[in-house]
């Protein structure tokens, strides 16, 4: 089932320069939502308890964030590049190496905090993913502008969009990842902080984005320096997500 959505995303990606692209993204999002709902009903638990499920959910959250941003800030053209990331995530999720069957929930995950902690965190990371793309686009268009070339996007618009995305993503990430995670850890493991590799790396990610906001709001940094921090932040988030799982073992062994 997931493969169909994967291909529908590929289609959208090609067409998303136009209005049709946006509508196709919307159809993709709705079908993906239905797929997640069916999976939840079928398995009886939240659709993010292993790597495959959480990748699929992260893609969904990214597309959701994208739809919101496109609607609010009228920046349709950047959508194509964001969908590239979504396609990449779905491709990894669909690879034969990922176990796809829904397995019963291990005791540690049987809590409503699973819903709160994972969904809010991944939604925040969805916004970071879009900010990553807009920051990359900023760097490209800014370099082009300096050489006197025409660009599709106005660099200053991209810069302020990146800021707004992080301004939405950061509170979500703080609430879902940090605060909900601490409360859940306190209930399940007996301590709000265990210096687990995933905890440490998400704290690093959190610090990078906090640095972004501080340098921007307090010190007035903009443009290239901000874009670099936003890119670094998303790379840290990616390492928290993939690197910690495959390179280091810890308490967060499920996702």
């Amino acid at each position, binding site marked *: 089932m997931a493969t169909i959505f994967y291909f529908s995303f590929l289609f959208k990606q090609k067409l998303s320069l136009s209005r049709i692209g946006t509508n196709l993204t919307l159809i993709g999002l709705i079908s993906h939502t239905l797929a997640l709902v069916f999976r939840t009903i079928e398995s009886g638990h939240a659709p993010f308890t292993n790597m495959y499920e959480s990748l699929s959910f992260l893609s969904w959250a990214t597309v959701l964030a994208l739809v919101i941003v496109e609607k609010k800030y009228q920046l349709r053209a950047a959508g194509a590049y964001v969908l590239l990331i979504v396609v990449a995530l779905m491709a990894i999720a669909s690879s034969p190496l990922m176990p796809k069957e829904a*397995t*019963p929930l*291990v*005791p*540690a995950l*049987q*809590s409503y*905090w699973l819903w709160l902690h994972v969904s809010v965190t991944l939604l925040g990371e969805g916004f970071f993913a879009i900010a990553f793309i807009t920051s990359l686009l900023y760097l490209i268009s800014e370099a082009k502008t300096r050489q006197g070339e025409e660009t599709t996007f106005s660099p200053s618009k991209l810069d*302020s969009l990146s*800021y707004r995305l992080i*301004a939405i993503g*950061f*509170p979500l990430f*703080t*609430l879902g990842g*940090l*605060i909900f995670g*601490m409360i859940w850890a*306190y*209930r*399940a*493991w*007996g*301590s*709000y902080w265990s210096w687990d590799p995933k905890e440490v790396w998400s704290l690093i990610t959190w610090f990078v984005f906090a640095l972004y*906001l501080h340098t*921007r*709001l*307090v010190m*007035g940094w903009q443009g290239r320096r901000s874009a670099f921090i936003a890119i670094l932040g998303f790379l840290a988030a990616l390492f928290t997500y993939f690197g910690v799982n495959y390179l280091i073992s810890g308490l967060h062994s499920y996702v």
Partner: protein
Amino acid sequence: MALPPSAPILIFASRKSYLYLRLILRLDKFLIEYYPNGSIKDWKSTLTIIENQKEKITKTIEVNHPLSYQGFRFYQSSYGWDWKNLQLQSEIKKRSNPQYSHPLTLVPGQPQNAPDNLTLVVTHFVPDFIITQSGQITTRSLEPHNPAAFIQVKQGHKNLYTGWIFARFADFSLSQAAEPSDYHFLLKDVQAEMYSGIQIAKDPGTNFIWAGCIFLGLGLFLAFYWPPREIWGLIENHNGVVNIHLGGVASKNKETLIQEFTRLIREIRGFK
């Protein structure tokens, strides 16, 4: 800590230089729930806390549902089998007589007598038998995935059988004295008492952490939605010609000030 059923443990608290008995924790019941496919669904421990010789509270805890009592929190953290205290149900059979069966309960280290002048003793037990690449026999885990017992059987003074027998693989045995005999020995079941691993935490500082979380949330909210900024306006009237001067300052987040300022100017211009 590992808590065997019905043997209470004592919890001491320290006050300056001495320890005093604070609480007694007793495990009333421990059970494991399984999913239909055999994987573990939950561990449940029923705990009773005794203070000053009175039973104060009884609660069944499970993962994600700890017991709280006067600042102490009791978590379900692990479980296991007490392999030092186990009973092995075994059976002696005869190849010449398929009807023959003699059940026997063995305890490691204690020789047991059986008919036909047989003496059985279990010298080693592993819950999860494995042979490593270097040929050593060890246990892969502390769970009874492949329980195996090393038995020595004598008939009078004659060694009859020395080797491993397996609970999961009745037909299979790994023997050293491979002299064929009429008897064969089965390991039917392994019984050991389970214990429940309880983690006890007392962290009076946690409330400060929650307070910090609330401040963090409030701070984020204020920083984004209520940044300090000032906007002034000066309206001059020079004989019917009205001049409006606008000025603004923000200590941080100048971007939104610029946005708000341009919006304000646009609105004032539209007012004409």
